[in-house]
């Protein structure tokens, strides 16, 4: 039986460069995460800033022995957005595509598909496998039963499960951060940098509901898949993806490592995560084919 790996997903939020550098330095030095996804996936307007530090970050992570994967934008619109994807066409490292522009750009070279790609079944996965896809992190709303069907139908594809973090639920042409601050997207003043884990959205009766991150809408809850080691293995899942938040991700990774190696059970995993200052309550409904905001006990 091969070991279950851990992956760190791309940072969804508009973090300043110093924070990105510090964050990845700690991941490089203090975590045993095997794979790290880097790059801006939410808003092309942020790229001129973060692009300056990502080469340095990649070098640091690779020096620490991590497999680095460059992630592409989920919703490329402008010429600059499109060029950022095309620029990866001859990169010989691994690329995570989050839009079909990315598949086209790879021209048959290997790639992995991120959770923004609509891979809901084994047929779609097979089609992309023929085009060079070697791994997939399916859409977050896909129930575990479907993930398992795809994983078993395509054993050559590495299956990665979105296992921790606020759920990426939607993208839009409109920037809701700008709208909430009575600004327009073209003159947004990069106001999304005020909310390092997303802007909380509550209902009229003050129930926590969603979180906004620029053009992206996330869950308010923090999704956590707390399957045991044997359950993960039985479902042919190769890797667990942890989505970055301001909370101590080194601790989060330690908890999931303990879970994936059978040192703690689901209840202990839940308890350890709950003891951290998470941006929202834990949820896992999607895993079981239920509404994503629910926590469903085993």
């Amino acid at each position, binding site marked *: 039986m091969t070991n279950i790996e851990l992956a760190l997903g791309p940072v969804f939020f508009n973090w300043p460069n110093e924070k990105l550098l510090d964050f990845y330095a700690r991941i490089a030095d203090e975590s045993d995460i095997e794979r790290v996804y880097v790059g801006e996936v939410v808003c092309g307007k942020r790229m001129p800033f973060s692009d300056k530090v990502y080469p340095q970050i990649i070098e640091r992570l690779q020096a620490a022995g991590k497999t680095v994967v460059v992630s592409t934008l989920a919703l490329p619109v402008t010429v600059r957005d499109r060029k950022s994807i095309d620029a990866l066409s001859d990169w010989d490292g691994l690329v995570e595509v989050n839009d079909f522009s990315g598949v086209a750009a790879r021209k048959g070279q290997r790639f992995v598909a991120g959770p923004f790609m609509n891979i809901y*079944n084994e047929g779609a996965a097979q089609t992309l496998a023929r*085009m060079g896809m070697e791994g997939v992190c399916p859409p977050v709303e896909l129930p575990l039963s479907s993930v398992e069907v795809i994983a078993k139908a395509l054993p050559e594809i590495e299956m990665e499960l979105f296992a921790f973090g606020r759920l990426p639920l939607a993208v839009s042409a409109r920037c809701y951060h700008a709208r909430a601050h009575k600004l327009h997207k*073209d003159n947004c003043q990069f106001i999304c940098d005020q909310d390092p884990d997303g*802007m909380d*959205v509550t209902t*009229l009766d003050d129930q926590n509901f969603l979180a906004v991150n620029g053009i992206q809408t996330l869950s308010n809850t923090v999704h956590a898949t707390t399957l045991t080691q044997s359950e993960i293995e039985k479902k042919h899942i190769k890797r667990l993806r942890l989505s970055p938040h301001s909370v101590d991700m080194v601790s989060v990774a330690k908890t999931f490592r303990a879970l994936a190696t059978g040192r703690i059970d689901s209840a202990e995993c839940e308890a350890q995560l709950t003891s951290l200052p998470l941006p929202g309550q834990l949820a896992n409904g999607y895993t079981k084919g239920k*509404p994503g905001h629910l926590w469903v006990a085993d």
Partner: protein
Amino acid sequence: MQQDTTTASRTMELVCPAGTPAALKAAAEAGAHSIYCGFRNETNARNFPGLNFSEKELNAGVKTARRYDADVLVAVNTFGRAGDLDLWKKAVDAVSASGAHAIIAADLAVLDYAAENHPNLRLHLSVQAAAATPEAVNFYADTFGVRRVVLPRVMSVEEIVKLNKEIDVETEVFVFGGLCVMTEGRCALSSYATGKSPNLTGVCSPPGDVDYNDNGSTLSARLGGFTIDCFSQGETAGYPTLCKGRFNAQGETSYLFEDPVSLNAASLLPKLQKAGVTAVKIEGRQRGKAYISQVVKAFRTAVDGLSEGRTSEAEVSAMLASMTEGGRETTGAYKKIWR
């Protein structure tokens, strides 16, 4: 009346919705060039109770449409359930057998199956695939032979102009009816609240998960237990579509994502024609035949007027006046300021 020699002569195709055989006939009678519909199951993104077509009804619908010189387009545009793709494959076979003009699909599994097994069936890329760049559109064209792409409602007219210059397939755009604020096919908000979503089950904010809670002074419209909007006594309570609700953020209450408006891009038809758009589409397979008939007549007047080089804007606007919900409209992302 102004003659515009650059846009005259080509009539934009008017694509109209039909949720029932009666609506299909009404759309054909009212002048639709083509009519789109779907099967009565999870294979289409308007999987509402009491709507849609059986295979037999589709076959009859294709014949009805032909009598009016109209084409039928069939949406098999949800994402197939893992381990259960036969339902989607059978739907593709049934579209092919019906003699319909084209199939509208989004899932790679469905596109692949159609291209492999029914090479003569015309493929349209559903809006649920959200292909918005030349690279993405050309990918679908090169891989599956897609002939037309229905553009996601995230693009400005300027972006559509540029896109059309870089692709060889036809484009179709929504011009009237419901408005998705999120990129279509990339939204799981509904399943987050209810467990059911467009991609998973072909529904958004489904009626079965809606309840109204009256505490005497206010009426809360809820979805999956989340309050989506509140109404005071005497106010007309709207349907709690998740992205059109009122929420709190930054200490303020607002329609954070979008006001409860519907799309009306009738005034942009000349620009869309100049942008090289082949077909304009009306949303609303859940609508009754009276509504369909009136909206289709209005837009047929508009596209006919355009092809003859004259503007019918005032006339069309009057015809549509009573058709928009609560009279509140938007031109959506077609104007960049919307963002």
